[in-house]
């Protein structure tokens, strides 16, 4: 047991644990902050996975073509929003089941990006590293929070913006009202399905940005396996966080901790069975939801389609 304790102390005192943790958390938080808005509007998009992957792919192709990071990031956003468009229009303009559409999109995008990746083979690289003076010198977490590649810092803008948008604007109030009681919202003159579509477009934009961040801020090249189910962890983070922004970000950090722990254990040379370790983030996510999911109150109309006159 002494060895185990020593290993945990070793992992927790290693700077790379925090740097990786911050990268993983940021990736999840890009997607989760958008998904939070979408879920507060009463939709549940399992196509987040597809949005992230498409965003990563279009960003990679964007850089390959334009060699400009800002343009590539923008293309990542567009990619995410294209998937959001299919999800939103099919399930909240037409009335196809949102889970069916989301699932199909995930599988379609996996095949499509894999196919196109082999045809195009986009060349990409990491964006430049920005060290924030003074802050990045904080021991242990300084480099993790303030010494990353610049797309990372977009998150510091996105999260407060999401909070403002959802909780301080009329639009945000309407979003929350269609998620709680779409019938009342409808009667008071809000176009329920229009607000829902908009919320999904927002999720698509932030997830697309998250995908682009993954390429330019963390990995540096595209593969069809780079998202690897983490879109679902982002959705779990929203539920884990009880549909609040603070809780969602906390969920992202905890789940990212499990992802980073896994890397550090191997990186520091400890012998742990790699299969069991790989399922750790998913186990932590499941256990986290099992502990917290029943204590929080979900948006009352979550995952219930709205058709006027049908209840």
């Amino acid at each position, binding site marked *: 047991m002494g060895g185990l304790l020593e290993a945990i102390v070793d992992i927790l005192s290693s700077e790379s644990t925090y740097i990786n943790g911050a990268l993983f958390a940021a990736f999840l938080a890009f997607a989760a902050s958008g998904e939070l808005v979408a879920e507060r509007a009463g939709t549940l998009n399992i196509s987040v996975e597809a949005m992230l992957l498409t965003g990563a792919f279009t960003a990679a192709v964007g850089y390959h073509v334009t060699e400009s990071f800002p343009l590539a990031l923008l293309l990542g956003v567009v990619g995410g929003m294209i998937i959001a468009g299919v999800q939103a229009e099919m399930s909240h303009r037409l009335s196809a089941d949102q*889970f069916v559409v989301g699932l199909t999109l995930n599988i379609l995008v996996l095949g499509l990006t894999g*196919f196109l990746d082999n045809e195009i083979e986009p060349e990409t690289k990491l964006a430049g590293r920005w060290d924030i003076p003074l802050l990045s010198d904080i021991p242990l977490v300084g480099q993790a929070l303030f010494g990353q590649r610049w797309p990372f810092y977009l998150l510091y803008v996105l999260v407060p913006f999401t909070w403002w948008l959802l909780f301080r604007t009329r639009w945000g109030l309407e979003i929350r009202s269609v998620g709680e009681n779409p019938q009342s919202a409808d009667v008071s003159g809000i176009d329920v399905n229009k607000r829902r579509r908009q919320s999904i477009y927002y999720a698509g934009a932030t997830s697309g940005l998250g995908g682009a961040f993954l390429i330019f801020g963390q990995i540096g090249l595209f593969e069809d396996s780079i998202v690897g189910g983490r879109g679902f962890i982002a959705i779990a983070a929203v539920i884990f966080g009880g549909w609040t922004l603070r809780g969602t970000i906390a969920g992202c950090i905890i789940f990212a901790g499990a992802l980073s722990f896994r890397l550090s254990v191997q990186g520091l040379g400890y012998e742990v069975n790699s299969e069991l370790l790989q399922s750790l983030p998913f186990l932590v996510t499941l256990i986290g939801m099992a502990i917290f999911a029943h204590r929080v109150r979900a948006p009352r109309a979550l995952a219930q389609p709205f058709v006027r006159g049908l209840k």
Partner: protein
Amino acid sequence: MSGTASGPRVGEWVVLYVVSVLAALVLSAILVQATGGQWRPVVNALLDGSIRNPGRIGETLGTAAPMLLVAIGTIISSKAGLINIGQEGQLFVGAAFATYFGFLIGGPGALNVVLILIFGAIGGALWAGVAAVLKYWRNVPEVLSTLLLVTVGGQLVAYGLSQSWLLLAPLADRGNRNQVSSQLAEGNRLPRLEISGNEIPFAVFLGIGLAIVVSLALSRTVWGFMLRMLGRNPRAAQRSGVAQTKYGATAIMLSGAFAGLAGAAMLAGGGFAFGNYQLVPGFSTNIGWTGLLVALVAREKALVAIPVAFVFAGLRTGSSFVGATGVEGRITDVIQGFLVLALLVPPAVMFLRDRKRARDAATERT
């Protein structure tokens, strides 16, 4: 509101479906052309690989069988209004159970084959049961838990395959390969029926038989009625005495059982698609996902799932021939995705049209 399925309505359905499917196919063809390929050879290769070349129909049927089994299970859970999307993991865990207990019990003969199938179903049901427990005890949405359990299940089985006290074959049986189980003995494999050069695995008949049974059970029994009531209106079901936990958990576990059965059938059936009667990492090879898509396209009708499974299996067996045309075989994943998406459109459009018609009729009357 349901409308009579006659006259112009049938025409509308047909037109909508034809247009959607054509759009999906044309989009796929454009993609092939745009990436420097030719669509005609791809179509030919797909047809050769799936039905035209000798023996390929048997392969396609054999590939369709586990997809069909997965789809039947999915239909049961979605009738109850539950969204189980973890079939890929349930199938893999089921196959692992079948392997472990198949060797534990040992012994030749038909009885052991049946036991292998049953243990596969139990394994799948238990793995889906985890999601049921999480849902009804801890309120975790089954959409997410079943999905996260796919990865966990995959890694657990991979762990089992690395441990000789669980699934790993003894050194003499595996040469220098890692992470493989022993091969099922000759007498423990599912039989095949030979019809005009095609070897048709037993699982095909099992699948079709079960599709009929489930279709009848859902439409003609009290149990099926209660399940459907739970799916259509949980509150009304609760009021009229359908215990949500009991029926819901049963539905999820049954759908897991069918996925597990598919896994066991793949193990004991072997053949072109599913290897050498032994368990390896990645054994499930997306059959669970594809089976799920089959169920979605079949729109909760077990009998419709039979031809749909055949078409999707054809895309899969055909894809191995596509490589020779210079177009990547993964194009079939894309075609499949476009097709599924296209098939979602007509029902959604018709639903809205029906509602509009009903509204117009109501305003006319007043």
